């Protein structure tokens, strides 16, 4: 290890936590971590759920048996084509296989009755329902308050068998793949490839891939890797999609070797011969190199899509979805919290507004009251003034009258006196005269 150089890595894709790069000056030992992970994973054991879909008689059971080199399907456990059903069923069987200390619990899901009826409309529906129900089971298990064992029965890969007509995909094939490509990893296979010559096969493959692209069907894509070797292999596989396979339950001796194959009068079609068919590629890809990736894509993409659709519906049932498109990055609880906060502030505003209106109205009313009080007061004052004026007037009049009366009475008295005096004088005179 070189001596310490510090490189600061700013842009960090994981939530902005800045990490400083450090060089180590000696062996620390955490390079052992992968071994620890390895051991733990072996102890845990592995699970894989594989679905096989196709019309009867396409060699699905034989292929599965060939893939896993075991009698998954046997006379006691017949394959889908032997289990006659009136309607499409989805059935599963679990087998435990061990190899090199590794335990693998394999669940094979098949669909007897698929595509066998005269009217095959909606024959994909039971398949969709099955896949969704497994997602739902996982979602519920994951969302429990008490989580313990979380068995993973989600369908991680779907092998779709295409009949070797040589001409192209059937409408049923297209319908099925279009409806399932966003729920499960689809690997389309050309069944019974030994009925076509290599050139016919080549043509057929090109035609199928063209139609797949035309219909925008998303089949399973191999991930890009940094490793050159791996990329070379991946590119080789991509060129040969869809894989044309042959399966066999019988072992035949060819040139001293015991191989799986199909014996024809004109020769033996060997299952594991790369020039005869793509079986080996399929097995390598499905089991030896990409099984983990199939599980990861199911978990990180298909399941997450299901989950976010399911939970988004909870938040926005009844509400216009377009308004809330940007809010899927919150958990429903955070969403509710935010809504609650919004509601509180909305209520505050409403309360304030209502208060305002209320105050205003009260003020108005009070003002009116005051105004009418003032008015009434004024009128009262006026009336009072009026009355007082009248009073004064009356007083004046009375005084005047009194005065007049007094004067006249005074005058009368004077007159009376005069009269009295006059009559007395007369009396006196009269008396005098008489004398």
């Amino acid at each position, binding site marked *: 290890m070189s001596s310490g150089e510090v490189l600061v890595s700013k842009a960090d894709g994981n939530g902005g936590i800045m*990490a*400083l*790069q*450090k*060089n*180590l000056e*000696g062996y*620390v030992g*955490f*390079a052992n*971590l992968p071994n*620890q*992970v*390895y051991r733990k*994973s072996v*102890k*845990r054991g*592995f699970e894989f759920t594989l679905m096989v879909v196709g019309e009867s008689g396409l060699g699905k059971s034989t292929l599965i048996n060939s*893939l896993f*080199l075991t009698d*998954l399907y046997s006379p006691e456990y017949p394959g889908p084509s032997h289990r006659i059903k009136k309607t499409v069923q989805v059935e599963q069987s*679990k*087998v435990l*296989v061990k190899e090199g200390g*590794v*335990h693998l*619990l394999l669940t094979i899901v098949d669909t007897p009755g698929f595509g066998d009826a005269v009217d095959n409309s909606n024959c994909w529906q039971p398949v969709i329902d099955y896949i969704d129900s497994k997602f739902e089971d996982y*979602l*519920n298990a994951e*969302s429990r*308050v008490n989580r*313990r064992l*979380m068995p993973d029965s989600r369908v991680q890969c779907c092998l779709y068998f295409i009949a070797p007509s040589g001409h192209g995909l059937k409408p049923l094939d297209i319908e099925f793949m279009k409806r399932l490509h966003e729920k499960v990893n689809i690997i389309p296979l050309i069944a019974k490839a030994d009925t076509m010559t290599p050139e016919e096969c080549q043509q057929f493959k090109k035609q199928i891939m063209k139609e797949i692209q035309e219909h925008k069907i998303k089949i399973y894509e191999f991930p890009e890797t940094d490793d050159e070797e791996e990329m070379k292999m991946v590119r080789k596989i991509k060129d040969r999609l869809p894989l044309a396979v042959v399966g066999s339950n019988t072992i035949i001796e060819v040139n001293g070797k015991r191989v799986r194959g199909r014996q024809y009068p004109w020769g033996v079609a060997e299952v594991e011969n790369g020039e005869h068919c793509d079986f080996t590629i399929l097995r*390598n890809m499905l089991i*030896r*190199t*990409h099984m983990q*990736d199939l599980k990861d894509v199911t978990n990180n993409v298909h399941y997450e899509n299901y989950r976010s659709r*399911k*939970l*988004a519906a*909870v*938040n926005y*049932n009844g509400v216009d979805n377009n308004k809330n498109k940007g809010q*899927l*990055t*919150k*958990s*429903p609880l*955070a969403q*509710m919290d935010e*809504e609650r906060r919004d*509601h509180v502030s909305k*209520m505050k505003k409403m309360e304030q507004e209502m208060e305002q209106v209320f105050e205003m109205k009260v003020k108005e009313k*009070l003002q009116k*009251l005051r105004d009418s009080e003032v008015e009434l007061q004024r009128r009262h004052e006026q009336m009072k003034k009026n009355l007082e004026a*009248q009073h004064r007037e*009356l007083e004046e009049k009375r005084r005047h*009258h009194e005065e007049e*009366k007094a004067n006249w009475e005074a005058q009368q008295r004077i007159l009376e006196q005069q009269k009295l005096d006059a009559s007395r004088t007369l009396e006196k005179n009269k008396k005098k005269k008489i004398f």
Partner: protein
Amino acid sequence: MAANEVDVFAHEEKRNLELGGHVGFDSLPDQLVSKSVAQGFCFNILCVGETGIGKSTLMNTLFNTTFENEEASHYQSEVQLRPQTYDLQESNVNLKLTTVHTVGFGDQINKEESYKPILEYIDAQFERFLEEELKIKRSLFNCHDTRIHICLYFIAPTGHSLKSLDLVTMKKLDSKVNIIPIIAKADTVSKSELDKLKIKIMSELVSNGVQIYQFPTEDEAVAEINTSMNTHLPFAVIGSVEEIKMGNKMVKARLYPWGSVQVENENHCDFVKLREMLLRVNMEDLREQTHTRHYELYRRCKLEEMGFKDTGPDSHSFSLQETYEAKRKEFLVDLQRKEDEMRQMFVNKVKETEAELKEKEKELHERFEQLKRMHQEEKKNLEEKRRELEEEMNAFNRRRVAAETLMGQALQGCSQQPFKKDKDKKK
């Protein structure tokens, strides 16, 4: 993820089949491992210990590098946590290491609240993960896992056993994080003192019910070493980044006048054991325990607190969607109720005030009615008086007229008589 026993799938109904050849799924662990390596690993260490006890030095020694760390002062008013994240690489393994140190731990006079910031930090990391897990659109596989995988508790080698602060803190943390207690600055303790100290510490931990991390012994590959290591707990460690020459090698050591203490000498201290256990053997187990035990416990408590249940009153189990829907309905009902309450309160207020104002209005009108009545009275009085005056005036006028008429008559009579008199005189 399935349980961790050997026959994992014992509870499943399945057939056991023999393989007729090499299928190739024995590469599954390799596939898993190479994916993990490509993604990179996260590991988060929390160091709890007093200021100056040697946390930073130990980290530097453990990881053979120099992490940035300013020396802390003793005058922090409260305990703080300082996380730092580093990208390390060894062969093809990328490790995102986060070291979190407590700053100011044990420096305050009142240490009752010392453990709280630590607990809050640990909970905050759980919360962060839980939030991501509960989002509608989430990216768990991309998420940087900041949950604390291991807490190294540094015990001061002074005294004869644990301080009460140590016991209190560890007791609070033991259900939240994997704790490995270590005796720091072990070069100040002699061998016999150390043995006694270790026994004393372990017995105190046991008698106080503190759950420290036990190295797992189920995996045969590591059972032996782990079991033996469990008996050496707590590890007595020394940290040093200085190197001195021993023989022809440079070794990490501390130089004293009486000798040099070599960090990686197992006779001198347990550093090598710690490194072995922590990094080379049990790192993955620590991460797993954090996720499946401590995080699950936090999650369970948090969800129960928020009112989530697994089964309803009639033991009908709820799906997550039902629970969310129910919660949401409850929530909306609650909001509506609050709104209605507020409106109702307003309506009541308005009614009250209206009634008050009406009262006031009535009062006002009554008052003025009264005044009006008063006025009417006054007016009546005035009218009365006026009438009286009128009558008087009329009476007076009549008198006057009568008097004048009388006077007129009298005057006439009088005027005749004097004539007669005069007539008489003249004769």
